[in-house]
């Protein structure tokens, strides 16, 4: 075991301390992190909130509708403007007329060129977003491909198992064949030896028989003397005579 691995984990953690300038991270207990968050992720809106007169939020008008009716807020604005102009709270100096010019200019630009400018800018936004999306999808595709490769590798690993099994079977068959071959060898060897003994016995007995016959014949031949032959001849004649007398 390596020396640094033998230090217990708690020991290492206890040695690490935050400096005063480093804010301590608010770590959440792991059990509470498991439950899903109550709110969904923030979603970017597609379009800006609706506005009237170019800049006043729609909600302000909707808020006063129950009290004033639809035209109420406009009447209120006209009344306030009337009061402001009348009391010269809104002073009609040179800047005021400059402002009116600006309002006309802005109105013309936003209504005439606005949609086209918007289109161009939207295209740029789309291009920008597509760039991000493209890199994201490309990366995703790489990971999906990696997963696919991994699955294929797993399948191939299973194939390896099959191959291994086949090899084992093959070896078992070879062992069986070797076993049977050896059994056959043993059988053949024993049979050969037994055949040898049989043949040996047969040959021995044949030779013994041959010698025995030769010996007996020799003995018999030696035993046949001329006197014995004469005796035999005489006996023949006697027997023939006996036979003849009977017939």
């Amino acid at each position, binding site marked *: 075991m390596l020396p640094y691995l033998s230090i217990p984990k708690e020991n290492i953690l206890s040695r690490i301390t935050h400096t005063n300038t480093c804010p301590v991270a608010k770590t959440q207990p792991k059990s*509470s992190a498991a439950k899903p968050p109550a709110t969904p*992720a923030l979603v970017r809106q597609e379009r800006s909130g609706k506005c009237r007169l170019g800049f006043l939020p729609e909600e302000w008008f909707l808020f006063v509708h129950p009290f004033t009716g639809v035209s109420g807020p406009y009447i209120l604005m006209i009344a306030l403007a009337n009061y402001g102009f009348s009391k010269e709270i809104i002073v009609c100096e040179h800047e005021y007329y400059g402002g009116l010019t600006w309002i006309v200019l802005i109105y013309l630009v936003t209504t005439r060129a606005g949609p086209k400018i918007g289109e161009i800018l939207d295209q740029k936004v789309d291009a920008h977003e597509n760039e991000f999306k493209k890199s994201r999808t490309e990366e995703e595709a790489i990971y999906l491909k990696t997963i696919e490769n991994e699955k294929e590798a797993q399948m191939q690993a299973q194939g390896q198992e099959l191959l291994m099994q086949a090899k084992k079977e093959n070896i078992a068959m070879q062992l069986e064949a070797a076993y049977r071959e050896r059994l056959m060898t043993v059988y053949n060897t024993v049979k050969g030896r037994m055949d040898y003994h049989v043949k040996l016995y047969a040959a021995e007995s044949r030779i013994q028989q041959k010698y025995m016959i030769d010996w007996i014949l020799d003995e018999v031949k030696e035993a046949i003397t001329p006197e014995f032959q004469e005796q035999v001849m005489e006996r023949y004649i006697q027997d023939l005579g006996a036979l003849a007398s009977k017939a």
Partner: protein
Amino acid sequence: MTIGDYPKEYDPSAHGQYDPARYYGKPDTPFGDVKLSELAAWLARRKKTPSAVLGACSRAWWRWQHKYMQPRKVGAAPFLQLIVGSIAFFYVINYGKIKHHRNYKYH
């Protein structure tokens, strides 16, 4: 709580992703639903510490950003709002000088 920290009430496991436009404390009656008679009590319930005021400003800023400035397709509205707002602001701070351009003595 120091500068740059999340609000004390924010709990990532319960609230999920941090929304800078959201108030994470105990919700009170929305300002739009407050009756005029309850307005004083409603205002009295508000926290008035500097950090609370700054937090409210920050949330308002992000609400405006999320609603008007940050959407994918933005019209002229947020820019016009900025222009109108700055006109009003500079009108107010320069009102002492503009006053001298009045055309009538009596109103």
